[in-house]
């Protein structure tokens, strides 16, 4: 009596698979395709998520942006529809009253302007920012430095230009720091180039902006004390959504609008945006695994089904094996191992093929995004496969066990 799994047994199983190529290929294809689909979808979802995340590149995930708007409720004898404006005092006020805040950065901006350098022109927006704005939207400095507090205090006419502005004005490339560009009627000296490709746009995206000191822009656009936008970030561990009501009530008290009037001040909370994104991708991921595993299961059922038919076809062969001394367990393990070997081989081919295709996709997509599945995803997939292989082999193996040796005696 022999019940061990050795090289001989493995060869016996391999022979019966590889000498019946057509049958094997047909059976294995379902698994191959299922695994390919699963991994391709997982990789694709991952890449898509990354590519969307690039949109938020450099943006602090706990940022809140405040913009004044028309009131929608009458308050203290004032009509609805009244316009009010944020001002520099609000910046100080928030700094003093809300110690949970890390950065309070005011901004004034103007767009639809034209920048010019030696005959090259481009449209751009000017953003007047404070020295701490880089903590809200992290720049990817290609050259030079960011706007600093000293630039704001001394009202220096300096600027940091975005990627598109740089490409349009300096098509020949090179470090532009120190040169002067003209925006509108004013000359600014370039002190830095920001290559950030984030697509979140607060008064225009970074790549199309010319960033200048806040004080310079305020004077240039004759804003006086007024501020267009205030950006705040929370200290680490602070949830911005929990601060929002207090910020609103501080502003409402100061600017005399109804604290319950949500439309009087537009508040953009990146934390919310990020959580919406996260939820979206959790949903997408769920769908991907559902579809992928569904396809894989369909493949396994296919394997089981075809093996069921083959067992019927192989009645004589199994009968012969039984007649010359195979015990039922020999037949059982033969069919199950055939199924496992088949699913593993076909599945591995699926893994290799999906890795290959994802690699190609990665090369084609211009963004620097990883589509490739991780090593552990592949390991998990392989484990899943072995389990599926055993399960798929179970029903056909049970049927094969029922074949009686007498069946070999019958004529075909």
């Amino acid at each position: 009596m022999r019940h061990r799994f050795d090289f001989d047994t493995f060869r016996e199983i391999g022979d019966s698979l590889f000498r019946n190529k057509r049958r094997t290929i047909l059976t294995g294809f379902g698994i191959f395709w299922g695994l390919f689909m699963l991994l391709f979808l997982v990789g694709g979802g991952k890449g898509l998520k990354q590519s969307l995340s690039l949109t938020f590149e450099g943006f602090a995930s706990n940022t809140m942006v405040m913009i004044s708007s028309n009131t929608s409720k009458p308050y203290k004898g004032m009509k609805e529809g009244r316009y009010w404006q944020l001002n520099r005092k609000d910046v100080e006020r928030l700094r003093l009253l809300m110690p949970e805040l890390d950065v309070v950065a005011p901004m004034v901006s103007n767009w639809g302007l034209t920048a010019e350098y030696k005959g090259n022109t481009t449209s751009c927006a000017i953003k007047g920012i404070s020295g701490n704005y880089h903590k809200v939207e992290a720049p990817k400095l290609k050259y030079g430095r960011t706007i600093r507090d000293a630039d704001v205090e001394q009202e220096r006419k300096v600027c940091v230009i975005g990627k598109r502005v740089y490409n349009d004005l300096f098509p020949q490339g090179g470090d532009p720091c120190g040169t002067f560009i003209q925006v509108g009627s004013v000359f600014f000296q370039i002190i830095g180039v920001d290559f950030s490709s984030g697509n979140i746009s607060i008064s225009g995206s970074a790549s199309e902006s010319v960033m200048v000191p806040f004080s310079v822009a305020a004077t240039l656009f004759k804003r006086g004390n007024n501020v267009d936008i205030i950006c705040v970030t929370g200290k680490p561990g602070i949830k911005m959504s929990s601060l929002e009501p207090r910020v609103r009530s501080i502003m409402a008290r100061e600017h005399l609008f109804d604290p319950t009037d949500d439309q009087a001040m537009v508040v953009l909370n990146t934390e919310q945006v990020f959580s919406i994104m996260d939820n979206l991708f959790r949903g997408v991921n769920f769908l991907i695994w559902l579809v992928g595993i569904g396809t894989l299961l369909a493949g396994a059922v296919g394997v089981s089904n075809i093996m069921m038919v083959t067992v019927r076809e192989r009645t004589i062969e199994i009968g012969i094996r039984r007649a010359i001394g195979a015990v039922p367990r020999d037949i059982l393990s033969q069919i199950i191992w055939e199924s496992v070997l088949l699913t593993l081989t076909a599945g591995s081919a699926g893994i290799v093929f999906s890795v290959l295709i994802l690699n190609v996709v990665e090369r084609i997509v211009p963004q620097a995004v990883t589509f490739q599945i991780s090593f552990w995803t592949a390991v998990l997939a392989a484990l899943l496969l072995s389990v599926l292989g055993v399960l798929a082999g179970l029903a056909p193996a049970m049927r094969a066990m029922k074949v009686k040796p007498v069946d070999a005696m019958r004529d075909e």
Partner: protein
Amino acid sequence: MLIELKGVHKTYDNGQPLHVLKGIDLQIEKGEFVSIMGASGSGKSTLLNILGILDNYDEGEYHLAGKLIKNLSERESATYRNRMIGFVFQSFNLIGFKTAVENVELPLFYQGVNRHRRHEAAMAYLEKMGLTDWASHYPNEMSGGQKQRVAIARALITHPEIILADEPTGALDSKTSVEVMELLTRLNREDGVTIIVVTHESGVANCADKIVHIKDGLIERVEDNRLHHASQFGTDTIMK
């Protein structure tokens, strides 16, 4: 006594009971060459299945080499089949995707003999059958006679107590039929292999030393045929 059957009954119950064997008593000594003859439906195939431990019986006793063969588990019967019985089938029943030598090796595979020794033994038997050159051919590349000789090699490889041949010439022409029967006779004469051939062809039956006639589930008579004159047609050749 190698084979001893006492009052063996077998009834099939497919819808309505069919009493196939109605009390078979049979003794076969080691080294005998016996043929079992009977018309279809006489119960000879059922008897062969019982002799080959492929099927159970309801009543009576069957001793094979001193062992009572009754109510065995699947595993026990598989082991006995593997060790004590070599089968030769009418339709050869070789596995199509295995070469001749692999087919011959298969019973030893289920005994757990290692690949090298299996191969040597199989090659030795193929040589004995004059098929050395055909060892690596697949069954569909061989003639009927060659296939049957491969099957005989497969039956012999485990040194069984008996060779059970079910219509071994049923699918062969008369010339190869003679060859196969001569081969079986030689094995019996020279190597002392016990051979039981089930057939309905009198010419084939005539090769044996003893002919057991079965009719309607009973042994009609046992004929001593050591002179091989049982069939008037069988003296020189096998009638097809």
